[in-house]
């Protein structure tokens, strides 16, 4: 556990252009932002079966030395065990707040993204099904996407989101963005001068929402209403992603399929 960070650390996600979905892209970008903020180099490798390679079934996951860790929470702890941490300077109450806000983002933004991708019929037909199974031949592509859709819908039903309409989900997103905007205020990062894992997580989700083209622009409009949040995303993009043209998915997000941040 006391080994230094190796040069060939790799982050695995699904194929950027054809396959990856909104929620997975957001999670992946959050982890990439976090690692950039810690100054730990990592290569982004895109594989069609990234979801199946992952130990928890969720992307992204990182392969460091001979260990494989997936999802932002465990990755933050793993990186901390190696001696790098962004939240050491916070006191106990601030750490509690940071954890609470991270849960808010997971609870509302991530769930809303999943809802939009898998429970909104129009989006499912036109975007999700074609993208999710694209690396596989028929009929495997349809089977895999239906299976995943069934899984996600079961989860939505268990937590009570199945009964919500799209308008209600967008309202929740608006409430969440309002809360984040209030908390950020005029500061550069959520805990003033230094970025933390909360900033990485919020950046991952908001940037992806702002730069992904969906059926309608309603979701990104909700975020655009809050100018300090868009400025926050722009600032992090400029600071942590500008110099890395090759592998950053933030740069790739500016390619043809997605609408621009500016």
């Amino acid at each position, binding site marked *: 556990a006391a080994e230094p960070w190796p040069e060939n650390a790799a982050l695995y996600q699904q194929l950027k252009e054809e396959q990856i979905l909104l929620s997975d892209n957001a999670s992946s970008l959050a982890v990439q932002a976090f690692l950039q903020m810690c100054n730990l180099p990592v290569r982004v490798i895109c594989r069609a079966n990234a979801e199946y390679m992952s130990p928890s079934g969720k992307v992204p996951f990182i392969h460091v030395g001979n260990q494989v860790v997936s999802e932002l929470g465990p990755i933050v702890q793993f990186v901390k065990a190696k001696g790098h941490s962004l939240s050491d300077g916070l006191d106990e109450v601030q750490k509690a707040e940071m954890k609470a806000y991270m849960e808010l983002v997971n609870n509302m933004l991530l769930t809303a993204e999943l809802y939009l991708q898998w429970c909104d019929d129009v989006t499912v037909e036109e975007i999700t099904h074609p993208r999710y199974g694209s690396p596989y031949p028929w009929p495997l592509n349809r089977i895999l996407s239906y299976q995943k859709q069934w899984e996600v819908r079961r989860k939505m039903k268990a937590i009570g989101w199945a009964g919500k309409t799209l308008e209600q989900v967008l309202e929740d997103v608006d409430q969440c963005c309002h809360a984040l905007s209030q908390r950020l*205020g005029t500061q550069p990062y959520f805990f003033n001068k230094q970025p933390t894992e909360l900033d990485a997580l919020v950046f991952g989700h908001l940037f992806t929402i702002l730069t992904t083209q969906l059926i309608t622009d309603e979701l990104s409009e909700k975020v655009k209403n809050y100018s300090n949040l868009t400025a926050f995303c722009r600032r992090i993009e400029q600071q942590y992603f500008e110099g890395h043209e090759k592998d950053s998915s933030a740069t790739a997000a500016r390619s043809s399929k997605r609408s621009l941040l500016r």
Partner: protein
Amino acid sequence: MAAPMELSCWGGDWGLPSLHPESLTVMAYAKFSGAPLRVNTINNSWRAPKGDLPVLVSEDTVISQPAKILNFLRKQKYNADYELSAKQGADTLAYVALLEEKLLPALLHTFWIEAENYCSVTKPWFASRIAFPLSLYLPGKMSREALNRILLTKGGPPLYSLTEVEAQIYRDAKECLNLLSKRLGTSQFFFGDMPTTLDAFVFGFLAPIYKVCFPRVQLQEHLKQLPNLCRFCDDILTCYFRLTVSGHSPAGQDTADANLQKLTQLVNKESNLIEKMDDNLRRSPQHPPRKLTTLKLAAGGEESSPMSRLSP
């Protein structure tokens, strides 16, 4: 403010007005904001509970989830949050999300899935409050829903067995309790001297863990090591639920009670200073008997013993 609104919810026991966390949250919020609610607890009658409780019926509208009920009350001008800043409102949302993600699974597990607890306490209690044929079916259904929810949200790989999931959710819950305790610190409520929505939610989740006597109580033991959270629950019970703490069913409440509660709120606000001075005296009867031995100590000694019990 015209016709009183009716709230249907699960009843209470062990000194609580309700055993159900969501019902408790709504009742606490109504007390904090002074909303006149007529509370109907579900008892052994043929008016079977339809769907999820708590349910608020106001003239023609029927509203069912706690968040929606609270929104409705706020629109009716019963707002416990009007003194909060926007940032505190944002914090409220974040902490409620934390409670739902980290504490609720363990709460559901303690009530509905832990075999000893379920069979000896939860199932008989709920079954006794529901009319006959439904009482055979409904508790089982609630238990299955709780298990489903936990497995779907927390049970993905690499946690393959229920015991590993259980270990993880209790770890999360204990961490959540620690975070809440640190956030509350020494103040009376989460945002100063007046209780708000966040206090209602925290009370709704913590009070059942704190008061209900289960055979398997690891969460309750952890909670008892955090004296400021215990004091928080006790304060709310004595200040806001005084009329029902003796175990009477709250079905007899009417608007006169609401006025009394408002008066109590004002008196509480003004007597805060006196209460702070009387803090030592007030705290002692509410703690478990083992602390009585420290009653005779000087104020300094009394302060240090709760602190040393705070788990890291």
